[in-house]
């Protein structure tokens, strides 16, 4: 029958995004448990989730994140003590190779605490794009209004321009103790800033902006 399409052009089996994710990305159920909600990255994502969805998981109308996927990437850092007196300097690397081909980057921010109260004094922190052989370091500006103490610095241009194409983004986390400082102050264990990737997953089966289906008159 000439009306049949050639085998090569037959439609592919429709993807099942949830089951694919379960198969490819989910941690094995054996011997692995998501720990209790702890750690700043997890707390931040739970806040983001509560803002975007109700208790049953329905996306809240009018509070859209503007995309269907937000991926949090944690930094890796080389060993070695980052403290030198009152100054803290840590090089952070964010690896991006885990992104799926269907996930298209819309926006990227780095989330960090610009100010942290200590028992004595406070800690002031900033982020720099790490200097390379071709370009000097760049101090990143936080968004005008930090939420819940968190500041977000936009790093989209650096990923779009190709910094991320190498599969990673390198930043420098710099903090300084301010206020009355005693010589016996213990070094503070700081959690690393984390990278948030706002992605549009174009794989069929992911949610599009909610809209009422068109109903035809009958």
């Amino acid at each position, binding site marked *: 029958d000439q009306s049949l399409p050639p085998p090569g052009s037959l439609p592919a089996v429709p993807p099942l*995004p*949830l089951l694919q*994710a*379960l198969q490819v*990305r*989910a*941690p*094995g*159920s054996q011997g*692995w*448990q*998501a720990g209790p*909600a702890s750690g700043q*990255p*997890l707390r931040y*994502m*739970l806040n*983001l*989730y509560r803002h*975007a*969805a109700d*208790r*049953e*998981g*329905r*996306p809240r109308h009018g509070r859209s*994140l503007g995309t*269907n*996927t*937000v*991926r*949090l*990437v*944690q930094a890796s850092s080389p060993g070695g003590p980052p403290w030198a007196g009152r100054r803290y300097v840590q090089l952070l690397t964010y690896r991006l190779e*885990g992104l799926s081909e269907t996930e298209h980057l819309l926006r990227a921010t780095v989330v960090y605490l610009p100010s942290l109260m200590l028992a004595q004094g406070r800690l002031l922190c900033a982020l720099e794009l790490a200097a390379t052989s071709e370009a000097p370091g760049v101090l990143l500006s936080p968004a005008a209004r930090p939420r819940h103490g968190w500041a977000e610095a936009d790093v989209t241009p650096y990923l779009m321009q190709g910094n991320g194409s190498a599969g990673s983004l390198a930043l420098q986390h710099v903090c300084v103790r301010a206020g009355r400082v005693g010589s016996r102050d213990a070094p503070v264990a700081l959690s690393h800033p984390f990278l948030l990737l706002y992605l549009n*997953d174009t794989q069929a*089966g*992911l*949610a*599009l902006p*909610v809209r009422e*289906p068109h*109903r035809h008159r*009958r």
Partner: protein
Amino acid sequence: DTGTLAHDLPGYLRDQGGEKSDCSLRSFPVSFAQLGWDHWIIAPHRYNPRYCKGACPHLLRYDYHAPNHAVVQSFVHQLVDANVPWPSCVPYRYSPISVLMIERDGGILYKEYENMIAESCTCR
């Protein structure tokens, strides 16, 4: 006599009185722990996909969103060949769900999946 059937529709619907057994949306909350996914999905804890169950009426009313084909199939079953089944009670419209997931590499992922909660039923 389809004309008579249509004419008798109000009385037919009154006589049936079986709203409870009619095709309708039913609630069924489950936890992700019951589905075995709680090591992966950390929010929400509970999920109500809901489901459609019940008999499709012999005359498909407008609120069943049934396509013309379903109307014809019900007549075929009734008037021509009972081996052709009644239209089935299935979901018609869905809404998405947002989930928060922990991945193998320790990353945390927010994702919206489409067609995860049944919102209404139809006879098809």
